[in-house]
């Protein structure tokens, strides 16, 4: 599973971004209409898609500025969950 490809699909669907696969991973998602309300909706979609639980301290737009940040967060949570499983 390529995390970035999956994250791009989720972000693109939620924010209605055409050609989401081509946008700069570091482009601020506020430009596409992300705000402090729908970023939580996005976070829940990410949780559901990757079957993970993002700690509540990461709730907030400051942790989800761009696709790159979201991927890093998902990778970190997945890594921690794997560590806890062993």
């Amino acid at each position, binding site marked *: 599973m390529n995390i970035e490809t999956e994250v791009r699909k989720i972000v693109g669907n939620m924010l209605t971004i055409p050609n989401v696969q081509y946008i700069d991973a570091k482009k601020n998602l506020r430009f596409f*209409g992300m705000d402090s309300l729908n970023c*939580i909706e996005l976070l*829940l979609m990410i949780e559901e898609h990757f079957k993970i639980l993002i700690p509540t301290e990461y709730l*907030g737009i400051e942790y989800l500025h761009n696709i790159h940040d979201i991927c890093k967060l998902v990778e970190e949570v997945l890594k921690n969950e794997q560590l806890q499983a062993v």
Partner: protein
Amino acid sequence: MFEDIYGASCVENQVLSILKSEGNNIAALYHNSAISLKQVFDCMVTEQQNPYYFNAVPRIQEELSQMGIVDSKFKQSEACTDICGEISKCQDGEYYLIRVTPTFTKVCLNARAMRDDHFVRVEAIDEDFVIYNDIPEKVVKISADMLKKVFANQYIIVTPKAPIDDLLMDRLWKNRKFKAEEYTPYFFTQHNLEGIKDAQTRIRNMIQIYKMMCYRMAEYYGLYVDTKFIRDKLPQIEHYYALSQYYVLKGDATAKQLLKLLTDVNSLEDEIMSKLNQLL
């Protein structure tokens, strides 16, 4: 363009942005920001107001109109209205805010239309038109034909009439509806949430309004004292807002969690207001 602008609606954001672009210090216009959390609670939780029609704090553009600082003319277009021609011929110092269609709002501006009526500022540049959207901040160039298609038949002509000077700042200070120095602590208990339907949504709406007021307070009282202590608290209030939205979407918050959220915001208010009172 819309940085440090904390309007309660798109029109308020646009009016503030126009005044800022003319060199005014718009922080002075946030004079009614020190509304207490209890007052916001009463509007948003007890009375269940919609946050997009919150009216306990007067709309800035209405106050400015009443004081003769800004002239705002609301117009409904008629069959003969040539909106492109009108905008092209607008006078210096006149700004056009036009209502745009929901599809254009969502698809081209990526704006979350929480109300049906979304207004943007439009300027004529050569044969084309430039649209300035507030949230998300976006500048889009469109043709006259496109403008006619996206125009939703209502527009507002905004004309600043006087600058925000020391005299006006004094007047605004004296006319404050909510005064930080009159803050009386109020502490919420479980009793406040008893019998409230859909309490999580109501609390989310309350924090949405209170958060905006905290940003405004940092700006307004920052004209008189150092409000770094308020700015330092803003990430915390943003977190509470995010948590409240998380509870709304999950739909499984317990009464204990909601009370904890409410009392956390309440403590934050008390810290801010106590410190602000010491400094004023």
